[in-house]
């Protein structure tokens, strides 16, 4: 008698369902076995070689200084709080870097397409140079350049307001709260909310009546007017909510006091990240603008739209669809690249973590910071994807 291994009349080695299940079970078992093997090695190594492991260190005092921090920090604070401080530093670098790199990148990308041969070539050279050299080389370069600046007394001073030198770092004017600044900010938030409502109402009016109602202009007007009125009320009662604090040399060594001061490490990191990422963003913007076929703008012009209207209603919305997805991945890259702060000594998440490994279990620390970076990546992806969905074709 012949043994026939069939299922639903098909030999089992050719039945797609059985094959797919076999493949999945085999791959699943292989991965689980590999993970179990690694974990058992890790745990035996921890026991045998007495390697510290676990999360109990998080409640211990970190008792190591963090050179620069946005959140208040004392050496008596715990490891857990030090993680928070470092993560905030990374977030700050990421947000500031993203905003400035986007601005610079859009300018350079637009300049590359401009009709003027000289500046479009300059922009191309900028992009080709900075995109093709490793960021870490550039960071070291900016850092050396800043370290080579004269000390505070002979340093660079712009408009008597911006100071750049090799020991105090970069000082620039910054608003300083004077009289209930929080309350005033609340008023601004309210004004923004009002502005959003205005925009929606004016848009509806425009759709209903067909007459131009300038929803964006109205919204911005409401926001500015609201903030200004609140400001005037503050002035009328007593003092303005904020004053611009301008740094000025002070004391025997002439260190700038007032305003806001960042170290040369942070300056070098930001300059390097912004210039590097902007080169990539410029290429994305250029590609996006070029991807809109010429027929689109020609058709728009023949319908009687002006240059700005063509740009605003026809070219730009279509370019945006091409630009946004790679732009988001550049934002992620900038955030991840900020970990190179380690090389020049700015206290970001990675460099604080590296210091922590001297007094706490390294494996756990790196697991934690990888988790935090993943969280940031997910947050950027989420925001980006929501916006992307908003601007894509919705059909109809």
């Amino acid at each position: 008698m012949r043994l026939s291994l069939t299922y639903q009349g098909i030999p089992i080695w050719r039945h797609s369902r059985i094959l797919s299940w076999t493949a999945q079970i085999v791959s699943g078992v292989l991965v689980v076995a590999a993970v179990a093997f690694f974990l058992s090695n890790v745990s035996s190594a921890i026991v045998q070689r007495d390697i510290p492991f676990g999360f109990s260190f998080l409640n211990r005092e970190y008792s190591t200084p963090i050179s620069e921090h946005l959140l208040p920090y004392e050496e008596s604070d715990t490891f857990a709080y030090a993680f928070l401080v470092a993560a905030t530093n990374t977030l700050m670098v990421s947000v500031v870097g993203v905003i400035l790199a986007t601005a610079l990148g859009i300018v350079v990308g637009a300049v590359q397409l401009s009709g003027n041969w000289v500046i479009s070539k300059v922009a191309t050279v900028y992009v080709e140079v900075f995109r093709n050299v490793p960021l870490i080389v550039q960071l070291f370069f900016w850092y050396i350049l800043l370290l080579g600046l004269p000390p505070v007394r002979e340093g660079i001073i712009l408009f008597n307001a911006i100071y750049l030198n090799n020991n105090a770092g970069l000082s620039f004017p910054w608003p300083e709260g004077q009289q209930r600044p929080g309350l005033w900010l609340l008023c601004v938030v309210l004004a923004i909310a009002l502005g959003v409502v205005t925009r929606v109402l004016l848009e509806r009016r425009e759709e209903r009546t067909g007459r131009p109602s300038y929803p964006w202009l109205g919204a911005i007007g409401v926001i500015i007017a609201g903030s200004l009125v609140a400001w005037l009320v503050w002035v009328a009662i007593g003092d303005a909510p904020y004053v611009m604090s301008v740094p000025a040399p002070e004391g025997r060594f002439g260190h700038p006091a007032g305003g806001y001061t960042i170290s040369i490490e942070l300056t070098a990191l930001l300059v390097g990240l912004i210039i590097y990422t902007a080169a990539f963003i410029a290429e994305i913007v250029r590609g996006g603008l070029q991807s809109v076929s010429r027929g689109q703008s020609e058709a728009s012009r023949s319908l009687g739209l002006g240059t700005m209207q063509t740009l605003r209603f026809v070219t730009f919305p279509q370019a945006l669809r091409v630009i946004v997805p790679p732009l988001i991945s550049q934002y992620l890259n900038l955030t991840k690249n900020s970990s190179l702060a380690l090389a020049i000594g700015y206290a970001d998440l990675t460099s604080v973590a590296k210091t922590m490994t001297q007094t706490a279990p390294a494996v756990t620390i790196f697991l934690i910071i990888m988790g935090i970076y993943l969280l940031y990546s997910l947050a950027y992806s989420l925001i980006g994807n929501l916006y992307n969905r908003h601007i894509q074709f919705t059909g109809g």
Partner: protein
Amino acid sequence: MATAETWQPAPSLPPPRIETGWIGWARANLFGNWLSGLVTVVTVPLIVWAAWRMLGWLFGTADWTLIASRPQQYLIGLYPTELAWRPLTGWLLVSILFGMAAAMWGGAARRIAIGYGAVTVLLGVLPYGLFHEGVVMPWWVRAFILGNLLTLGIGYLLGMNPKTGRPRNFVLGGIAIYVLLLLILIGIPGVPGMEEVAPRRWGGLMLNLILAVSGIFFAFPIGVLLALGRRSNLPVVKVLCVVFIEVFRGVPLITLLFMSQVLVPLALPANFPVDSVTRAAIVITLFSAAYTAENIRGGLQGLHPGQAEAARALGLPGWQVTTLIQLPQAIRNVIPAIVGQFIALFKDTSLVYIVGMLDILEMGRSIVQGNVQFTDNGRENLIFVAAVFWIFTYTMSYVSRRIERNLGVGRR
């Protein structure tokens, strides 16, 4: 009967002088409108001034003794001097591939081979390492370097020969040379002159190139598998691939390199022979594979579903639909993105200093820091290293643009 005279229009006049030639070009591109004219007038003097300052620094103020006196360290790091002939032999082998490529594909490949040959000649005859203290470049090293012209020529002849000059031979030869090169560098214990040189003593540009080539070589197939896995209908496979890709793409490479140094030794059995260079190479490869996978997935998504349907209707089995119909088209469409990823991989090799290796960047920095007379030459060092990286990455992006044009991506 009079023949009807067909009316002949008078020949067109040549365009006015002011619209052609360099005057016309300048009118169109420099002074197109008042704003453009203003920009030109303002920026040109600025650019001339900046270029003048920069050239003045490069050829006047800057002191390049640092680089001229330490060519060996920049090229091969701390690889033992008396065994330097081994990396040099490896280099000779690699030149064969350049020659073959030039003969087989011509065009961009030929231009790159010519540039490569020119750089080799320069490296062979420039008077560095002769008049400076430090490592004096012996004559036989120059002979080795100039020998590359010979192997370049041999490669060219191999490529011209219709029997040997086939893409398959090129790929197989490349793999053979890669393996041979690693073998020559590591050495064979017991053979005189082939003493073992542990990978942690490799360094300089050689290390960057080895890490990059290994990364590209392995990241591509792994990336393809991951991309296919992520699109597969099998939930277990799909989840595994998604988790792998997203974790590796979500964290900085530095943290992964750290992990490879602290966790991998724990996760492997005690005394498992895997050194830090191999670990770094594996991490860089997997990191790059995750990005390559996403690029290829993008290409697969961009394919019209009709392609796979037509293939299936013709009776191709599933794996052939993937390998013969979908992948070739998908990969062709995303070549620029993949090359961009490989450029990023090459740039990322400069991060291995994190795990204590002396790649070209860290080698240069340690020369600057370790020698009092070079303390002020940090800038020269970094500019030199940047230039070396730039030459390689720019060549790669040039090749990518040429391939793109030859395949006609975006022009169909």
